[in-house]
């Protein structure tokens, strides 16, 4: 099987699941009055990013997933800040790449529970606040209003504080995701493309369908 094609399909399916979760599950959590941003990053984003890293072990994949998920997030049928969220999601993928590139590719460094918990805290916290900071800078620039650095500086303590909850959630989620590496979950080559493209198509059709019905 063509390795590049397999990777592309992986980026598409994990990115689509991420985008779908942000649009649909994130909106449900928001309507329920829950801290949806923290839950999305601490649980869903961490699961997709680490799971894909474990499965493919290739740099650049999570960046691609962020681009796919961010693009899908633009079409969120349930409103919210489309541009800010899309930019934050894309940044989250890039920040994950930087953090994990700095530490480990082969997961050898994360055999003990202390390191797993620590990596969960570090990853979820930095991915969350990194995405937050990037969107605070890029949204005014991309939307053409203009970026004022003092607006970011005075809000920085709030951003740093907001990463605490996703960081704590990540402490529990990452060790759980790493346990999945003990399972021999492999999909047969003949089912790989139909499954990945089928799941991706479902995510896009569901989000775009709702967007055309309610959001457009």
């Amino acid at each position, binding site marked *: 099987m063509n390795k590049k094609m397999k990777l592309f399909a992986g980026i598409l399916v994990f990115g689509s699941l991420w985008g779908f979760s942000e649009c649909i599950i994130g909106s449900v959590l928001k309507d329920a009055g829950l801290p949806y941003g923290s839950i999305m990053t601490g649980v869903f984003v961490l699961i997709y990013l680490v799971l894909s890293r474990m499965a493919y072990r290739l740099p650049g994949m999570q960046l691609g997933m962020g681009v796919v998920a961010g693009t899908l997030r633009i079409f969120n049928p349930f*409103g*919210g*800040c*489309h*541009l*800010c969220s899309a930019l934050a999601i894309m940044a989250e993928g890039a920040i994950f790449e930087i953090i994990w590139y*700095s*530490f*480990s590719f082969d997961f050898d*460094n*994360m055999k003990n529970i*202390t*390191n797993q*918990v*620590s*990596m969960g*805290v*570090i990853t979820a*916290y*930095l991915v969350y606040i990194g995405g937050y900071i990037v*969107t*605070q800078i890029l*949204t*005014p620039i991309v*939307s053409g*209003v*203009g970026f*004022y650095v003092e*607006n970011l500086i*005075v*809000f920085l*303590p*709030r951003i*740093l*504080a907001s*990463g*605490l909850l996703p*960081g*704590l959630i990540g*402490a529990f989620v990452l060790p759980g995701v790493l346990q999945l590496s003990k399972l021999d979950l492999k999909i047969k080559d003949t089912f790989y493309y139909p499954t990945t493209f089928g799941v991706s198509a479902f995510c896009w059709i569901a989000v775009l369908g709702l967007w055309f019905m309610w959001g457009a």
Partner: protein
Amino acid sequence: MGKEKLLPVFAIAVLIIGCFSSLYVNAIEGDSKTIKINNEEYTIRQIFNFANTRTIITDDGEKTGVALDDLIINTASKCSSCNAYTFKSKDGYQQTVTWDYLQKGVLTEDNRIYFSDTAHSFWVKDIVEIEVG
């Protein structure tokens, strides 16, 4: 020391930063019962009494409130050399826009500003101050 041995140190540092930032933001959080404009304090009720209202169309529906440009003019805050208007929230969040955007913006009764053609991140809530610069 290997990177793996530094992981717990980094994690603790991250949690300490998060905890102290939380304590700090809770300590500095302001009160949004009044809005400070040009060093004068106004209640939302007062603002609605002296400034004209308008309705704008946003991608989140119609929003009706005090016209921001009219608010600035009526509080004698407009100056010919100024073109940056910063809206500050009680949680420290703030956004700056130019006069052109004020002409397409409103302050609603629930103390939130909306603009017809900006990203939602400019829709600052719980306004405590409007700074002219």
